[in-house]
């Protein structure tokens, strides 16, 4: 198993690590039993994500995908951020080993969870799928054919 240069760059120098005080949306996905937890903090003004930060407990891919996800949504509207897919994150990172695809799914879910929190805070109806918090269920997403 080998990570791309881009993955190693985002792992070794993760962008936007940390927390945002009084964030407009906070989402946490994954669980420690499975070895991965991602926490996403969003600062949103006029439906535009003006800042995004993350904290991650997980592998190199988990850290790199969190980092890339924050980069991809910063400066974008909430609507655009909701369209972020794990595939886009993987592509932006120059690919991930098949066994690590599930870590990128977590990054997508962390963004959605944070946006759902934002919707809830401003009293807007949540019209998108929100990852459910599941205890002790570790997801190994389908490994695509090589």
């Amino acid at each position, binding site marked *: 198993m080998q990570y791309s240069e881009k993955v*190693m760059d985002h*792992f*070794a120098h*993760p962008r936007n*690590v*940390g927390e945002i005080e009084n964030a407009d949306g906070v989402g*946490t996905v994954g669980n*420690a*039993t*499975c*070895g*991965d*937890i*991602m*926490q996403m903090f969003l600062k949103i003004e006029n439906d535009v994500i003006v800042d995004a930060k*993350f*904290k*991650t*407990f*997980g*592998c*190199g891919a*988990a*850290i790199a995908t969190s980092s890339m996800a924050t980069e991809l949504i910063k400066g974008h509207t909430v609507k655009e951020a909701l369209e972020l897919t794990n595939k886009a994150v993987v592509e932006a990172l120059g690919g991930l080993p098949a*066994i690590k695809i*599930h870590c990128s799914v977590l990054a997508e879910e962390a963004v959605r969870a944070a946006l759902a929190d934002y919707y809830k805070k401003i009293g807007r109806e949540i019209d998108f799928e929100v990852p459910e918090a599941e205890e002790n269920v*570790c997801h*190994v997403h389908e490994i695509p054919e090589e």
Partner: protein
Amino acid sequence: MENRFVYADNAATTPVAPEVVAAMTPYLTEYWGNPSSMYSKGREARRGLDEAREKVATLLGAQPNEIYFTSGGTEADNWAVKGGARYMRKKQGRTHVITSTIEHPAVLRSCEALEREGFRVSYVAVDKNGILDMEKFKAELDDDTAIVAVMFANNEIGTLQPIEELTKLAHEKGALMFTDAVQAMGSVPVNVRELGVDMLSLSGHKFNAPKGTGALYMRRGLKIDKYIDGGGQERMMRSGTENVAGIVGLATALELAVSRLPDTERIRKMRDRLADYILKNIPHTIYNGDPVRRLPGNLNISFEYIEGESLLLLLDMAGICISTGSACSSNSLEPSHVLLSIGLPAEKAHGSMRVSLSHLNTDEDVDYIIEKLPGIVARLRAMSPIYPGEGK
């Protein structure tokens, strides 16, 4: 300190020693004949093979005709476990196998294969230090037990099992005793006569011989079924043209390793110094395994709130090679079965680090790990959403 390269994963593999390369080279360049050929070119190779067998036998306390060379530890384990169980079923109708929950996959998967053949397998638990629970073991052992397969030393937490005692108990019930000594060989004294075992496996690449070399010791008088059919090499028991150079390398490496055993204390001291430093200076750490009944070079520590693969990658960037029992770094995405077996919760197994030192490591290596590790752990904790902070 200046940047260095510190290889601290000797339980995974070791470099081939220069003396071993030197001993092997003539068998690649000059004595390259087939040891089964009758002409002189073949006899040269045969001589190397015979000498190697004698050397290995002597070092193990065995007879030359009790040594069968294999392609490594995995093959020897498969052969011993499956072959031993099937032999006892054929001879005595026994259908039960006892092993431990912390065996290497080569043994565990072999046991599962036996289950598919109708054997009943007891996976005996270990205590929180990783030592086999003797009461549970005795409760499982009976007249139906065909073979007991318990490893001499564990590859992840280094715990040493009471093989002599287990052997006595197994023999009292007429069962065969096999031990996987792959990790023990060359690190602690191993003598098959003193142990009394019927079979024992070893692997060359764990003690500075090349990968793909190994051996099974099988007590004289015991003749389980051969595992590989073919031209009848290894006294009809393990076919395939012998890996002469590799076998010569294995024997040379084992001789060197055994001659170094009196120096084990130095390795133990380096290991203990590293352990003491980590436990005293890095908060939220857990010492995994037994502090005394343990391989001298093995250290296994869990750092809470961080994940092992990221730890491994950052240490690698600093030039340090270690391994981890984290799910994220395994092909199965399951945390180490050994760490779970000693009762460590999954989230703590994820943050585990195995350091395995050898005679090639120095005090400077340990100093370097001590210099780099705390900062890397702190860095990962700073980005961990579950880290409560120091002193909490």
